[in-house]
Protein backbone atom coordinates (compact mmCIF):
# COMPACT_ATOMS: atom_id res chain seq x y z
CA UNK A 1 0.00 0.00 0.00
CA UNK A 2 1.22 3.51 -0.83
CA UNK A 3 1.21 5.70 2.26
CA UNK A 4 -1.09 8.75 1.72
CA UNK A 5 1.33 10.74 3.87
CA UNK A 6 4.21 9.90 1.54
CA UNK A 7 2.10 10.91 -1.46
CA UNK A 8 1.25 14.24 0.26
CA UNK A 9 4.89 14.85 1.22
CA UNK A 10 6.14 14.24 -2.31
CA UNK A 11 3.59 16.61 -3.93
CA UNK A 12 5.70 19.62 -2.89
CA UNK A 13 8.72 18.18 -4.68
CA UNK A 14 6.79 17.33 -7.84
CA UNK A 15 5.28 20.83 -8.07
CA UNK A 16 8.78 22.24 -8.52
CA UNK A 17 9.65 19.76 -11.30
CA UNK A 18 6.72 20.31 -13.66
CA UNK A 19 7.83 21.99 -16.88
CA UNK A 20 11.54 21.23 -16.49
CA UNK A 21 13.20 20.30 -19.79
CA UNK A 22 16.09 18.01 -20.57
CA UNK A 23 17.47 15.45 -23.01
CA UNK A 24 17.60 11.64 -22.98
CA UNK A 25 20.98 10.09 -22.06
CA UNK A 26 19.96 6.42 -22.24
CA UNK A 27 16.63 4.59 -22.55
CA UNK A 28 15.00 1.17 -22.49
CA UNK A 29 11.54 -0.29 -23.04
CA UNK A 30 10.35 -2.28 -20.02
CA UNK A 31 8.43 -5.35 -21.21
CA UNK A 32 8.35 -7.25 -17.90
CA UNK A 33 7.18 -4.76 -15.30
CA UNK A 34 6.96 -4.82 -11.51
CA UNK A 35 3.64 -5.01 -9.65
CA UNK A 36 1.68 -1.78 -9.97
CA UNK A 37 2.88 -1.11 -13.52
CA UNK A 38 1.54 -4.17 -15.36
CA UNK A 39 -1.31 -2.31 -17.09
CA UNK A 40 1.15 0.25 -18.53
CA UNK A 41 3.59 -2.32 -19.95
CA UNK A 42 5.44 -2.04 -22.29
CA UNK A 43 6.68 1.45 -21.45
CA UNK A 44 9.97 3.32 -21.85
CA UNK A 45 12.07 4.69 -19.02
CA UNK A 46 15.02 7.00 -19.55
CA UNK A 47 17.92 8.68 -17.86
CA UNK A 48 17.51 12.38 -18.53
CA UNK A 49 19.94 15.28 -18.24
CA UNK A 50 17.95 18.34 -17.17
CA UNK A 51 18.81 21.85 -18.33
CA UNK A 52 19.76 22.78 -14.74
CA UNK A 53 22.62 20.25 -14.95
CA UNK A 54 21.06 17.57 -12.73
CA UNK A 55 20.05 14.09 -13.88
CA UNK A 56 16.85 12.18 -13.28
CA UNK A 57 15.32 8.83 -14.17
CA UNK A 58 11.70 8.75 -15.26
CA UNK A 59 9.08 7.11 -17.43
CA UNK A 60 8.50 8.53 -20.94
CA UNK A 61 4.87 9.08 -22.00
CA UNK A 62 3.13 10.19 -25.22
CA UNK A 63 6.03 8.73 -27.19
CA UNK A 64 6.58 7.39 -30.68
CA UNK A 65 9.47 5.19 -31.74
CA UNK A 66 11.32 8.16 -33.27
CA UNK A 67 11.52 9.77 -29.81
CA UNK A 68 13.53 6.93 -28.25
CA UNK A 69 17.03 8.17 -29.02
CA UNK A 70 19.95 9.82 -27.28
CA UNK A 71 19.64 13.65 -27.05
CA UNK A 72 15.85 13.62 -27.60
CA UNK A 73 14.44 16.75 -25.85
CA UNK A 74 11.77 16.01 -23.19
CA UNK A 75 9.64 18.02 -20.73
CA UNK A 76 8.38 17.07 -17.27
CA UNK A 77 4.66 16.56 -16.79
CA UNK A 78 2.51 15.13 -14.01
CA UNK A 79 0.77 11.77 -14.41
CA UNK A 80 -0.60 8.89 -12.37
CA UNK A 81 2.36 6.69 -11.46
CA UNK A 82 0.99 3.22 -10.70
CA UNK A 83 -2.11 1.13 -10.13
CA UNK A 84 -3.69 1.43 -6.70
CA UNK A 85 -6.55 -0.39 -4.96
CA UNK A 86 -9.99 1.31 -5.08
CA UNK A 87 -9.69 2.46 -1.46
CA UNK A 88 -6.16 3.85 -1.84
CA UNK A 89 -5.11 7.40 -2.60
CA UNK A 90 -4.23 7.94 -6.29
CA UNK A 91 -0.47 8.40 -6.63
CA UNK A 92 0.74 11.11 -9.02
CA UNK A 93 4.34 11.70 -10.01
CA UNK A 94 6.64 13.18 -12.61
CA UNK A 95 6.94 11.63 -16.07
CA UNK A 96 8.47 13.14 -19.20
CA UNK A 97 7.03 13.60 -22.69
CA UNK A 98 8.91 14.31 -25.92
CA UNK A 99 9.38 17.86 -27.14
CA UNK A 100 9.36 17.66 -30.91
Amino acid at each position, binding site marked *: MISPIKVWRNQKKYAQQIGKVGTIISWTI*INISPEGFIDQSPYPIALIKLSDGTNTLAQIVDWEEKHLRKNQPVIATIRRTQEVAPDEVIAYGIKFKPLD
Partner: protein
Amino acid sequence: MNITIAGCGQTKFGELWESSPRSLARQAVFTAIADSGVNKKSIQAIFVSNMLSEMLGMQSHLGALFAEELGISVPAYTIEGACASGGLAVHSAINSLLSQRYDTVLVLGVEKMTDHSSEYISSALMGAGSNEERLAGATFPGLYALLARAHMEKYGTTESQLASVSVKNHFHASLNPLAQFSHPLTLDQVMRSSYVATPLKLLDCSPISDGAAAIILQRSPTPKKNTVEIIASEIATDTLGLANRNSLTELQSTRKAAKNAFTSCGIAPSDIDIAEVHDCFSIAEILAIEDIAFDKKGEVAKKMEQGEYRLDTGQGLVVNSSGGLKGCGHPIGATGVKQIIEIYNQLHGQCKDRQVKNARLGLTHNVGGTGATAVIHILKKHD
Protein backbone atom coordinates in the same frame (compact mmCIF):
# COMPACT_ATOMS: atom_id res chain seq x y z
CA MET B 1 45.19 -11.21 6.88
CA ASN B 2 45.67 -14.79 8.13
CA ILE B 3 42.02 -15.68 7.48
CA THR B 4 41.51 -19.21 6.18
CA ILE B 5 38.51 -21.13 4.90
CA ALA B 6 38.04 -24.26 6.99
CA GLY B 7 35.18 -25.73 4.98
CA CYS B 8 32.26 -25.09 2.63
CA GLY B 9 28.78 -26.37 1.87
CA GLN B 10 26.24 -25.53 -0.80
CA THR B 11 22.79 -26.75 -1.80
CA LYS B 12 21.77 -27.16 -5.39
CA PHE B 13 20.47 -23.85 -6.74
CA GLY B 14 17.14 -23.73 -8.56
CA GLU B 15 13.39 -24.05 -8.13
CA LEU B 16 13.45 -25.99 -4.88
CA TRP B 17 9.74 -26.02 -4.03
CA GLU B 18 10.08 -28.85 -1.48
CA SER B 19 12.73 -26.98 0.53
CA SER B 20 12.21 -24.27 3.14
CA PRO B 21 14.81 -21.66 4.14
CA ARG B 22 15.41 -23.71 7.30
CA SER B 23 16.04 -26.95 5.41
CA LEU B 24 18.29 -25.20 2.86
CA ALA B 25 20.34 -23.68 5.70
CA ARG B 26 20.70 -27.00 7.49
CA GLN B 27 21.92 -28.74 4.35
CA ALA B 28 24.51 -26.08 3.50
CA VAL B 29 25.79 -25.59 7.05
CA PHE B 30 26.10 -29.25 8.05
CA THR B 31 27.90 -29.95 4.76
CA ALA B 32 30.33 -27.11 5.60
CA ILE B 33 30.86 -28.41 9.14
CA ALA B 34 31.56 -31.92 7.82
CA ASP B 35 33.90 -30.53 5.15
CA SER B 36 35.84 -28.49 7.70
CA GLY B 37 36.21 -31.12 10.42
CA VAL B 38 35.45 -28.29 12.86
CA ASN B 39 33.38 -29.20 15.91
CA LYS B 40 30.02 -27.39 15.83
CA LYS B 41 30.69 -26.19 19.36
CA SER B 42 33.76 -24.26 18.28
CA ILE B 43 31.69 -21.91 16.04
CA GLN B 44 31.59 -18.61 17.95
CA ALA B 45 29.35 -16.45 15.74
CA ILE B 46 27.00 -16.70 12.76
CA PHE B 47 26.71 -14.13 9.96
CA VAL B 48 23.52 -14.63 7.95
CA SER B 49 23.24 -13.10 4.49
CA ASN B 50 19.76 -12.49 3.09
CA MET B 51 17.88 -9.74 1.25
CA LEU B 52 14.21 -10.62 0.77
CA SER B 53 13.00 -12.72 3.70
CA GLU B 54 11.15 -9.81 5.32
CA MET B 55 9.17 -9.12 2.13
CA LEU B 56 8.74 -12.63 0.76
CA GLY B 57 8.51 -14.68 3.96
CA MET B 58 7.38 -12.02 6.49
CA GLN B 59 10.40 -13.19 8.49
CA SER B 60 13.12 -10.97 9.89
CA HIS B 61 15.43 -11.68 12.85
CA LEU B 62 17.26 -14.31 10.80
CA GLY B 63 20.35 -14.46 13.02
CA ALA B 64 18.38 -15.82 15.95
CA LEU B 65 16.21 -17.99 13.66
CA PHE B 66 19.14 -19.86 12.14
CA ALA B 67 21.05 -20.06 15.44
CA GLU B 68 18.01 -21.90 16.78
CA GLU B 69 17.55 -24.04 13.68
CA LEU B 70 21.19 -25.11 13.59
CA GLY B 71 21.43 -25.67 17.35
CA ILE B 72 24.36 -23.26 17.54
CA SER B 73 23.52 -20.83 20.33
CA VAL B 74 26.07 -18.08 19.69
CA PRO B 75 25.97 -14.39 18.71
CA ALA B 76 24.26 -14.16 15.31
CA TYR B 77 23.94 -11.26 12.88
CA THR B 78 21.91 -10.60 9.73
CA ILE B 79 23.74 -8.77 6.94
CA GLU B 80 21.88 -7.11 4.06
CA GLY B 81 23.46 -5.36 1.08
CA ALA B 82 21.01 -6.25 -1.72
CA CYS B 83 22.61 -8.72 -4.17
CA ALA B 84 25.98 -8.12 -2.47
CA SER B 85 24.65 -9.42 0.85
CA GLY B 86 26.73 -12.60 0.61
CA GLY B 87 30.02 -10.83 -0.06
CA LEU B 88 29.18 -8.28 2.61
CA ALA B 89 28.52 -11.04 5.16
CA VAL B 90 31.89 -12.64 4.36
CA HIS B 91 33.54 -9.21 4.68
CA SER B 92 31.80 -8.61 8.05
CA ALA B 93 32.80 -12.06 9.32
CA ILE B 94 36.42 -11.38 8.33
CA ASN B 95 36.34 -8.06 10.20
CA SER B 96 35.10 -9.86 13.32
CA LEU B 97 38.04 -12.28 13.07
CA LEU B 98 40.54 -9.49 12.43
CA SER B 99 39.26 -7.68 15.53
CA GLN B 100 40.19 -10.89 17.41
CA ARG B 101 36.71 -11.08 18.93
CA TYR B 102 36.29 -14.56 17.45
CA ASP B 103 38.54 -17.35 16.12
CA THR B 104 35.97 -19.41 14.18
CA VAL B 105 32.78 -18.09 12.54
CA LEU B 106 30.08 -19.36 10.20
CA VAL B 107 28.78 -17.41 7.20
CA LEU B 108 25.41 -18.58 5.87
CA GLY B 109 23.81 -17.13 2.73
CA VAL B 110 20.24 -18.18 2.04
CA GLU B 111 17.37 -17.02 -0.16
CA LYS B 112 13.97 -18.53 -1.05
CA MET B 113 12.48 -16.76 -4.08
CA THR B 114 10.59 -19.15 -6.34
CA ASP B 115 7.49 -19.41 -4.14
CA HIS B 116 6.36 -16.06 -5.64
CA SER B 117 5.42 -14.54 -9.02
CA SER B 118 8.10 -12.87 -11.12
CA GLU B 119 6.21 -9.52 -10.90
CA TYR B 120 6.25 -9.68 -7.10
CA ILE B 121 9.95 -10.61 -7.09
CA SER B 122 10.67 -7.70 -9.45
CA SER B 123 8.94 -5.32 -7.04
CA ALA B 124 10.72 -6.78 -4.02
CA LEU B 125 14.13 -6.53 -5.70
CA MET B 126 13.51 -2.84 -6.43
CA GLY B 127 13.97 -2.32 -2.71
CA ALA B 128 17.63 -2.17 -3.71
CA GLY B 129 17.00 0.80 -6.01
CA SER B 130 16.14 4.44 -5.39
CA ASN B 131 12.64 5.82 -4.80
CA GLU B 132 12.89 7.70 -8.11
CA GLU B 133 13.60 4.42 -9.92
CA ARG B 134 10.65 2.66 -8.25
CA LEU B 135 8.25 5.52 -9.15
CA ALA B 136 9.36 5.28 -12.79
CA GLY B 137 8.40 1.59 -12.91
CA ALA B 138 12.04 0.61 -13.39
CA THR B 139 13.25 -2.95 -12.87
CA PHE B 140 16.80 -4.21 -12.46
CA PRO B 141 16.84 -5.61 -16.01
CA GLY B 142 15.70 -2.12 -17.07
CA LEU B 143 18.43 -0.33 -15.12
CA TYR B 144 21.15 -2.61 -16.49
CA ALA B 145 19.61 -2.14 -19.95
CA LEU B 146 20.33 1.60 -19.60
CA LEU B 147 23.98 0.71 -18.86
CA ALA B 148 24.06 -1.75 -21.77
CA ARG B 149 22.76 0.84 -24.25
CA ALA B 150 25.34 3.39 -23.07
CA HIS B 151 28.10 0.77 -23.48
CA MET B 152 26.87 -0.15 -26.95
CA GLU B 153 26.85 3.49 -28.03
CA LYS B 154 30.31 4.27 -26.65
CA TYR B 155 32.20 1.08 -27.54
CA GLY B 156 30.13 -0.49 -30.33
CA THR B 157 29.23 -3.49 -28.15
CA THR B 158 26.64 -5.67 -29.89
CA GLU B 159 23.70 -7.74 -28.64
CA SER B 160 25.43 -10.82 -30.02
CA GLN B 161 28.55 -10.08 -27.96
CA LEU B 162 26.37 -9.73 -24.85
CA ALA B 163 24.69 -13.03 -25.69
CA SER B 164 28.07 -14.78 -25.76
CA VAL B 165 28.36 -14.16 -21.99
CA SER B 166 25.25 -16.27 -21.39
CA VAL B 167 26.47 -18.97 -23.80
CA LYS B 168 29.77 -19.22 -21.89
CA ASN B 169 28.14 -19.30 -18.48
CA HIS B 170 25.57 -21.94 -19.44
CA PHE B 171 28.41 -24.08 -20.82
CA HIS B 172 30.20 -23.81 -17.46
CA ALA B 173 26.94 -24.47 -15.58
CA SER B 174 26.40 -27.65 -17.60
CA LEU B 175 29.56 -28.98 -15.89
CA ASN B 176 28.39 -28.00 -12.39
CA PRO B 177 26.01 -30.49 -10.72
CA LEU B 178 24.79 -27.86 -8.23
CA ALA B 179 23.85 -25.34 -10.94
CA GLN B 180 20.24 -24.35 -11.64
CA PHE B 181 20.66 -24.92 -15.39
CA SER B 182 22.33 -28.07 -16.64
CA HIS B 183 21.81 -27.35 -20.35
CA PRO B 184 24.15 -25.42 -22.65
CA LEU B 185 22.72 -22.56 -24.72
CA THR B 186 23.45 -21.62 -28.32
CA LEU B 187 24.00 -18.04 -29.42
CA ASP B 188 20.91 -18.34 -31.58
CA GLN B 189 18.77 -19.39 -28.60
CA VAL B 190 19.89 -16.33 -26.62
CA MET B 191 19.40 -13.99 -29.59
CA ARG B 192 15.89 -15.33 -30.27
CA SER B 193 14.71 -15.00 -26.65
CA SER B 194 12.26 -12.18 -26.02
CA TYR B 195 13.23 -8.74 -24.76
CA VAL B 196 12.78 -8.17 -21.04
CA ALA B 197 14.09 -4.60 -21.25
CA THR B 198 15.64 -3.59 -24.56
CA PRO B 199 18.43 -4.40 -25.45
CA LEU B 200 18.51 -7.14 -22.76
CA LYS B 201 16.69 -10.38 -23.53
CA LEU B 202 15.37 -13.09 -21.22
CA LEU B 203 18.53 -15.17 -21.68
CA ASP B 204 20.75 -12.17 -20.87
CA CYS B 205 19.25 -12.23 -17.36
CA SER B 206 20.06 -14.35 -14.31
CA PRO B 207 17.09 -16.37 -13.02
CA ILE B 208 14.98 -16.31 -9.87
CA SER B 209 16.43 -19.00 -7.59
CA ASP B 210 16.36 -20.77 -4.25
CA GLY B 211 19.52 -21.93 -2.50
CA ALA B 212 21.93 -21.70 0.39
CA ALA B 213 25.70 -21.59 0.77
CA ALA B 214 27.84 -21.71 3.90
CA ILE B 215 31.51 -21.31 4.77
CA ILE B 216 33.45 -21.59 8.00
CA LEU B 217 36.19 -18.99 8.45
CA GLN B 218 39.04 -19.12 10.94
CA ARG B 219 41.77 -16.83 12.17
CA SER B 220 44.99 -18.71 11.45
CA PRO B 221 48.17 -16.85 12.47
CA THR B 222 50.25 -19.35 10.50
CA PRO B 223 48.20 -20.80 7.60
CA LYS B 224 49.10 -24.45 7.02
CA LYS B 225 50.08 -26.06 3.73
CA ASN B 226 47.15 -26.72 1.35
CA THR B 227 44.85 -24.25 3.07
CA VAL B 228 43.00 -21.51 1.19
CA GLU B 229 43.52 -18.05 2.64
CA ILE B 230 41.48 -14.91 1.97
CA ILE B 231 44.22 -12.37 1.36
CA ALA B 232 42.05 -9.33 0.55
CA SER B 233 38.51 -8.24 1.40
CA GLU B 234 37.33 -4.81 0.29
CA ILE B 235 33.97 -3.05 -0.08
CA ALA B 236 33.07 0.21 -1.83
CA THR B 237 29.82 2.11 -2.33
CA ASP B 238 28.36 4.51 -4.90
CA THR B 239 25.09 6.41 -5.34
CA LEU B 240 22.00 4.25 -4.73
CA GLY B 241 20.38 5.20 -8.04
CA LEU B 242 21.84 5.49 -11.52
CA ALA B 243 20.81 9.11 -12.15
CA ASN B 244 23.68 10.78 -10.35
CA ARG B 245 26.54 8.63 -11.64
CA ASN B 246 29.40 10.32 -13.48
CA SER B 247 29.59 7.46 -15.98
CA LEU B 248 27.16 4.83 -17.29
CA THR B 249 29.92 2.65 -18.77
CA GLU B 250 31.66 1.71 -15.54
CA LEU B 251 30.80 0.88 -11.93
CA GLN B 252 32.96 3.09 -9.73
CA SER B 253 32.33 0.88 -6.68
CA THR B 254 33.83 -2.11 -8.49
CA ARG B 255 36.84 -0.07 -9.58
CA LYS B 256 37.48 1.23 -6.06
CA ALA B 257 36.99 -2.09 -4.27
CA ALA B 258 39.18 -3.93 -6.80
CA LYS B 259 41.95 -1.34 -6.70
CA ASN B 260 41.98 -1.39 -2.89
CA ALA B 261 41.97 -5.20 -2.84
CA PHE B 262 44.92 -5.51 -5.24
CA THR B 263 46.85 -2.82 -3.34
CA SER B 264 46.20 -4.42 0.06
CA CYS B 265 47.63 -7.81 -0.92
CA GLY B 266 50.28 -6.60 -3.37
CA ILE B 267 49.21 -8.52 -6.44
CA ALA B 268 48.10 -7.42 -9.92
CA PRO B 269 44.95 -8.30 -11.91
CA SER B 270 47.16 -10.26 -14.32
CA ASP B 271 48.16 -12.60 -11.44
CA ILE B 272 44.59 -13.89 -11.03
CA ASP B 273 43.89 -17.32 -12.59
CA ILE B 274 40.15 -17.54 -12.02
CA ALA B 275 37.34 -15.13 -11.14
CA GLU B 276 33.71 -15.35 -10.11
CA VAL B 277 32.13 -12.03 -11.10
CA HIS B 278 28.63 -10.64 -10.67
CA ASP B 279 26.88 -11.44 -13.98
CA CYS B 280 23.31 -10.65 -12.91
CA PHE B 281 22.93 -9.54 -16.55
CA SER B 282 25.26 -10.16 -19.48
CA ILE B 283 26.40 -6.51 -19.57
CA ALA B 284 27.31 -6.77 -15.87
CA GLU B 285 29.99 -9.39 -16.60
CA ILE B 286 31.49 -7.21 -19.36
CA LEU B 287 31.58 -4.23 -16.97
CA ALA B 288 33.06 -6.37 -14.18
CA ILE B 289 35.96 -7.69 -16.27
CA GLU B 290 36.72 -4.13 -17.41
CA ASP B 291 36.29 -2.42 -14.03
CA ILE B 292 38.37 -4.96 -12.11
CA ALA B 293 41.02 -4.15 -14.74
CA PHE B 294 41.42 -7.68 -16.08
CA ASP B 295 41.18 -6.14 -19.56
CA LYS B 296 40.88 -2.73 -21.19
CA LYS B 297 37.57 -0.85 -21.50
CA GLY B 298 35.82 -1.60 -24.73
CA GLU B 299 37.82 -4.75 -25.56
CA VAL B 300 36.13 -7.35 -23.35
CA ALA B 301 32.94 -7.86 -25.38
CA LYS B 302 34.95 -8.65 -28.54
CA LYS B 303 37.17 -11.10 -26.64
CA MET B 304 34.11 -12.73 -25.09
CA GLU B 305 32.70 -13.31 -28.56
CA GLN B 306 36.01 -14.85 -29.64
CA GLY B 307 35.87 -17.43 -26.81
CA GLU B 308 38.04 -15.81 -24.15
CA TYR B 309 37.26 -16.34 -20.44
CA ARG B 310 35.90 -19.85 -21.24
CA LEU B 311 37.16 -23.13 -19.80
CA ASP B 312 37.58 -24.78 -23.18
CA THR B 313 38.61 -21.99 -25.56
CA GLY B 314 40.03 -19.24 -23.33
CA GLN B 315 43.76 -18.54 -23.32
CA GLY B 316 44.04 -17.00 -19.85
CA LEU B 317 41.71 -15.91 -17.06
CA VAL B 318 38.61 -18.12 -16.66
CA VAL B 319 35.49 -16.21 -15.57
CA ASN B 320 32.52 -17.76 -13.78
CA SER B 321 33.48 -21.42 -13.91
CA SER B 322 30.49 -22.16 -11.63
CA GLY B 323 28.15 -20.91 -14.36
CA GLY B 324 27.91 -17.52 -12.67
CA LEU B 325 24.63 -16.01 -11.62
CA LYS B 326 23.23 -16.68 -15.11
CA GLY B 327 23.90 -20.42 -15.25
CA CYS B 328 24.36 -21.50 -11.63
CA GLY B 329 21.45 -19.35 -10.39
CA HIS B 330 21.10 -16.30 -8.20
CA PRO B 331 19.53 -16.91 -4.79
CA ILE B 332 20.40 -13.37 -3.71
CA GLY B 333 21.79 -13.86 -0.19
CA ALA B 334 23.64 -17.06 -1.13
CA THR B 335 25.36 -15.77 -4.28
CA GLY B 336 28.34 -13.96 -2.73
CA VAL B 337 29.04 -16.93 -0.45
CA LYS B 338 28.78 -19.38 -3.36
CA GLN B 339 31.35 -17.36 -5.29
CA ILE B 340 33.85 -17.90 -2.46
CA ILE B 341 33.00 -21.63 -2.43
CA GLU B 342 33.64 -21.98 -6.18
CA ILE B 343 37.07 -20.37 -5.89
CA TYR B 344 37.86 -22.46 -2.76
CA ASN B 345 36.97 -25.66 -4.63
CA GLN B 346 38.93 -24.59 -7.72
CA LEU B 347 42.05 -23.82 -5.67
CA HIS B 348 41.75 -27.23 -4.02
CA GLY B 349 41.39 -28.92 -7.43
CA GLN B 350 37.96 -30.36 -6.59
CA CYS B 351 35.93 -29.13 -9.57
CA LYS B 352 36.27 -32.22 -11.80
CA ASP B 353 34.98 -31.47 -15.35
CA ARG B 354 35.15 -27.70 -14.85
CA GLN B 355 38.52 -27.65 -13.06
CA VAL B 356 40.84 -24.81 -14.08
CA LYS B 357 44.35 -26.24 -14.31
CA ASN B 358 46.98 -24.91 -11.92
CA ALA B 359 44.71 -22.28 -10.36
CA ARG B 360 46.54 -20.60 -7.47
CA LEU B 361 44.92 -17.18 -7.13
CA GLY B 362 41.20 -16.42 -7.42
CA LEU B 363 38.94 -13.39 -7.11
CA THR B 364 35.26 -12.90 -6.29
CA HIS B 365 33.18 -9.84 -7.19
CA ASN B 366 29.71 -9.32 -5.72
CA VAL B 367 27.51 -6.32 -6.57
CA GLY B 368 24.45 -4.83 -4.87
CA GLY B 369 21.91 -2.89 -6.95
CA THR B 370 23.43 -1.27 -10.01
CA GLY B 371 26.77 -0.91 -8.26
CA ALA B 372 25.71 0.94 -5.11
CA THR B 373 27.74 -1.73 -3.28
CA ALA B 374 30.62 -3.83 -4.57
CA VAL B 375 32.64 -6.39 -2.63
CA ILE B 376 35.91 -7.95 -3.79
CA HIS B 377 37.70 -10.91 -2.21
CA ILE B 378 41.01 -12.43 -3.29
CA LEU B 379 41.85 -16.01 -2.35
CA LYS B 380 45.17 -17.82 -2.42
CA LYS B 381 46.15 -21.43 -1.89
CA HIS B 382 49.17 -22.12 0.30
CA ASP B 383 51.34 -24.79 -1.35
